[in-house]
């Protein structure tokens, strides 16, 4: 087990080193190396998966090993180790499969690009980081891998660095997620401060023994969740993800759909005992997820960039998972549902992205308004994409159905038990309908109807085999993943939700399972209804055209605008900041120089403004003081030499004056004292 874990990590890192330094000199620029490495990792993961899931077959299986790494002094020892349980095994499979597929796909998609070798090096780096994130056994290494994932994402988004938009996007992504990371770091520090440990199991144990007080665990939990908010692009740090689509499409599929953004969800799942010890944290998580899920889906309706639509749908789906985990603190099945959705989503979202990549590859545009009727030209892509769409829409027999349904069931049960939290379910339900609607909008506009741009249509062609094979693999997985209900149950058996602490007690007190059956079936029925409702509506609008888009747009005017402009969040950040900044001309100047992009748009004007001010402070006040001092010294020097009049009588007068003063002062002092 240990060896396997090492091997899984070793292959990508070796590939990275070789690829980074010698990539150019290798045949085919070494694409086979990275791909092969991740393939080997996949094999190892698979063996591990079999071992854990099938040979051991123990829901509470845990393999843990840790090695001393370095010491921080005073008993604060940092270790490195593996924490392998069922969740790890499943996650490993997801990551390696998607990663391998994307590697494969990239060989075709990226063919002929400049820095082709670096691209694969970065992919290897990413794979390594992600696998490390999954395998590690303590918070510190988790944080490290967290950051490494961030930086590989930075490198990959900025792969087309000579494009300003890409350069902006990668920086925005990194910085925005880093804001989350800082919170996570603070969360880790809080835990370390009170427990002095990094190791998961030790921390869980300590938490379960109530070694730290309620509010501390709440603060730590919320801080840790901050990391997830950043990395999983939850509201309000979601702004980087749509921009991140500037990266090459395989990257979007791998990082910004399937794996990295799921890392936040994985982290919440992994550290669930910490979060679930505090109901407040769980509620925060649930509502943040809900907000993201709902409003991202609203935005997705009106977008026309194919990748952006998918990006917003990703946001929305991540929101589902997060909500599920949040609810999982109160309802038994939801935790599993969230993680299950993470898995299924990984496959179908990767599939959707790769399909969109295939489409883009064919028509060289991202705008769905310029597509149409492509199903004739590229049938494999069309079919696989429809499979993905069905999966995401929650149509039965596809993977999304089971997971989404489970989430809705959990939310419904929660809502029934705690009526004040019923909106969670409602929001998710409506969101599900909207999801079906906009995904089919995408399908109809892209593959059906008449081509809207004949020229592009004429040049379109099916993608090469290296690209279609991954699509097929993923499509299969999107279907197989749909063991539907059974899948959820199966996972339930494997991944035992580590419900501990107060939330669980609360759940137990309310009698878990009270509305469980009702919720389950009710949710299933309702979700089916809304999914088909969404599909049908979409069909009528975009295929049959029985409902005019223009009319809809007009009727829904403000709402449309709201959605089309992404609720003006980016602009909101900008506008509030501008308003703040306008107050001072100094800062205004700074602003002019710096309105460059989003995340830094959030922070840049403020920070840049402050920076300018503090720069000015430095230049004029602190430094000025010093220079002023110099001037003063000089002036005093000049004044003191003014005494030096050059006139001898004057010198004598001054000397006499000094004598007189000295004597006078002394005499007066003597008089006063004695």
């Amino acid at each position, binding site marked *: 087990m240990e060896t396997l874990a090492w091997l899984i990590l070793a292959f990508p890192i070796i590939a990275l080193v070789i690829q980074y330094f010698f990539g150019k000199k290798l045949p085919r620029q070494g694409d086979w190396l990275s791909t092969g490495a991740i393939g080997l990792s996949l094999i190892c993961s698979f063996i591990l998966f079999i071992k854990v899931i099938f040979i051991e077959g123990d829901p509470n299986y845990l393999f843990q090993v840790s090695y001393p790494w370095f*010491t921080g002094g*005073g008993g604060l020892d940092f270790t490195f180790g593996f924490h392998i349980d069922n969740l790890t095994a499943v996650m490993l499979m997801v990551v390696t499969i998607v990663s391998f597929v994307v590697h494969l796909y990239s060989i075709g998609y990226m063919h002929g690009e400049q820095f082709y070798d670096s691209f694969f090096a970065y992919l290897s780096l990413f794979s390594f980081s992600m696998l490390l994130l999954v395998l590690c056994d303590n918070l510190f290494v988790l944080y490290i*891998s967290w950051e*490494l994932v961030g930086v590989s994402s*930075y490198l990959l988004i900025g792969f087309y660095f000579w494009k300003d938009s890409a350069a902006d996007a990668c920086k925005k992504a990194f910085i925005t997620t880093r804001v989350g990371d800082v919170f996570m*770091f603070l969360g880790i520090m809080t835990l*370390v401060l009170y427990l002095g440990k990094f190791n998961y199991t030790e921390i869980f144990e300590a938490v379960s023994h109530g070694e730290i007080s309620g509010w501390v665990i709440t603060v730590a939990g919320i801080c840790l969740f901050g990391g997830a908010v950043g990395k999983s692009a939850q509201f309000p740090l979601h702004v980087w993800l749509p921009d991140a689509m500037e990266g090459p499409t395989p990257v979007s599929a791998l990082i910004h759909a399937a794996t990295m953004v799921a890392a936040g969800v994985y982290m919440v799942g992994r550290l669930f005992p910490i979060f679930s010890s505090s109901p407040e944290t769980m509620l925060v998580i649930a509502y943040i997820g809900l907000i993201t899920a709902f409003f991202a889906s609203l935005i997705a309706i009106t977008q026309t960039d194919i990748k952006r639509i998918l990006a917003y749908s990703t946001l929305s789906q991540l929101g589902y998972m997060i909500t599920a985990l949040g609810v999982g603190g109160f309802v038994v099945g939801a935790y599993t549902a969230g993680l299950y959705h993470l898995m299924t989503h990984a496959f179908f979202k990767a599939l959707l992205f790769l399909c969109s990549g295939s489409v883009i590859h064919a028509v060289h545009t991202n705008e769905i308004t310029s597509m149409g009727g492509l199903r004739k030209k590229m049938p494999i892509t069309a079919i696989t994409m429809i499979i993905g769409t069905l999966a995401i829409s929650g149509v039965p027999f596809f993977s999304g159905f089971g997971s989404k349904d489970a989430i809705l069931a959990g939310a419904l049960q929660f809502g029934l038990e705690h009526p004040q939290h019923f909106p969670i379910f409602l929001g998710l339900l409506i969101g599900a309908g909207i999801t079906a609607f906009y995904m089919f909008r995408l399908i109809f506009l892209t593959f059906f109807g008449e081509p809207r741009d004949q020229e592009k249509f004429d040049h379109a062609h099916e993608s090469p085999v290296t690209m279609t094979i991954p699509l097929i693999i993923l499509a299969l997985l999107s279907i197989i993943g749909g063991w539907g209900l059974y899948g959820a149950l199966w996972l339930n058996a494997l991944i035992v939700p580590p419900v501990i602490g107060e939330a669980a007690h609360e759940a137990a007190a309310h009698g878990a399972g009270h509305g469980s059956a009702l919720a389950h079936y009710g949710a299933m029925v309702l979700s089916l209804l809304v999914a088909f409702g969404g599909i049908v509506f979409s069909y009528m609008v975009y295929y049959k055209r029985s409902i005019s888009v223009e009319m809809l747009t007009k009727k829904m005017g403000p709402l449309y605008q709201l959605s089309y402009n992404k609720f003006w969040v980016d602009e909101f950040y900008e506008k509030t900041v501008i308003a703040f900044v306008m107050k001072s001309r100094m800062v205004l100047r700074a602003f002019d120089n710096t309105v460059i992009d989003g995340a*830094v748009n959030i922070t840049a004007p403020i920070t840049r403004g402050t*920076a300018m001010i503090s*720069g000015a402070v430095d230049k004029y006040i602190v430094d000025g003081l010093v220079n002023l001092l110099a001037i003063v010294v000089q002036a005093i020097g000049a004044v003191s030499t003014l005494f030096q009049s050059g006139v001898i009588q004057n010198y004598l007068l001054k000397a006499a004056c000094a004598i007189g003063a000295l004597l006078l002062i002394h005499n007066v002092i003597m008089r006063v004292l004695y």
Partner: protein
Amino acid sequence: MESQNHLLTWMTFWPLIGAAVILCTPSRAKLFIKQLAFLFTLPSLACGLWMMKDYDPALSYQFVAKVPWIETFNIFYFVGADGLSVPLLLLTVFLCPICILASWGINDRVKGYFSLFLLLETGMLGVFISLDFFLFYVFWELMLLPMYFLIGVWGGPRREYAAIKFFLYTLFGSVFLFIAMIVLYINTGSSFDLTTLGPDIAASSFWANAANLKWWLFLAMFVAFAIKIPAFPFHTWLPDAHVEAPTAISVILAGILLKMGTYGLLRISYPILPDMAVKFAIFIAVIAFINIIYGALVAMAQTDLKKLVAYSSISHMGIVMLGMAAMTPAGMNGAVLQMFNHGTITAMLFLLVGVVYDRAHHRNIDGFGGLAKNLPVYAGITAVAFFAALGLPGFSGFISEVLAFMGGFMSHILWIRIITIIGTSGIVLTAVYMLWTYQRMFLGPVNEKYADMPDCTLREKVTLIPIAIIVLVLGIFPNLLINLFEPTMGRLVELLSKNF
């Protein structure tokens, strides 16, 4: 007195011999002088490595030599190394040959440059090996003059201003150190011995009743060291000096000279006046915080690349101070580790600035763009340096920053914890200015003006890659370094914790 160990003495004075030899070389033989200078830094490096062979982290002072120097004043030539100085000694002997290589382009008054450089190296090593306060002070001051000339003669356009500013600031600080030194000497039974001053004071009844005096003494020493660090608001010499200094000297300034401030605090202020150190902790932490945030913000406002790096140094040294202010094992270890790591990382950054300046003859960040396309090697190494500077895991800076922040977070003093929490936002700010700079220089559309700029030469690679390797290795195996000083720092923390 048991047998004297002359290893450290040799290490320190080899460069001085080199300087003397260079002075005797005809000034026409420029290349020969450069080679000579390089050769004379190597024995020190060898001594440093040899030192590692026998160094035992568990013991306190090693390689001790104690020879009476000025008997009447009880001054000794007393040198030795412990966990605190060993990393810095290694850093110094390692960076100096690299800096000589980086100075290969100097062609004006070569003889003066390299002999002064070697003199400077002696001064720097001397500071780190001194265990006698007076000796420490002599070396401390000895560095001033070479530095003044190196900046003033071979620097940029405003070199005179920068050089005198550096000189004035440092002297301003060191006169207070001077006073504090003598006051300590007078009131501790005439001793300059850094190893015994602390216990002497702790045991003395005079000092037990002289809290006020101790307070002032600590402040005086703190001012001296704060200027070197440089701590807000004494930092303004640094951007000027860094910007105007030639590349190698910027490297030395940022890589080694700044460490002397924090080294001095840890070597002198903390052990000698631990009770005052504890009292000042919150104050140091506040300054550290200002350094971190303020340094980062001001860095963001810069358009001159070198100035940006200079301000980033201020920010990073704030982290060192934060770790020190925490007075927890993690904080202390983080601080020392960060001292070393900042030394290597900033050295890289300055060398990189030098590379691009040699080609473009300006350092305006906005004046570049898209360099990554045509200078992949340079861009790659710069990316490594930048990522290391912003504390990316895998690079050494990360470990030390984390340790320092954790130390701060675990401090006994609540306010320091709060300061640390706010201070972590510095992590984001660092990322912002580093990445933004990287974007403006390397990403985006290619600036046609520099389309045919050549990539790194072999010499530049030779200077940069060893540092990069160290940065990486220490990022993955920080224990290599931490083990060297962890016991020493543990003892210091123990000493301090008695005073809480």
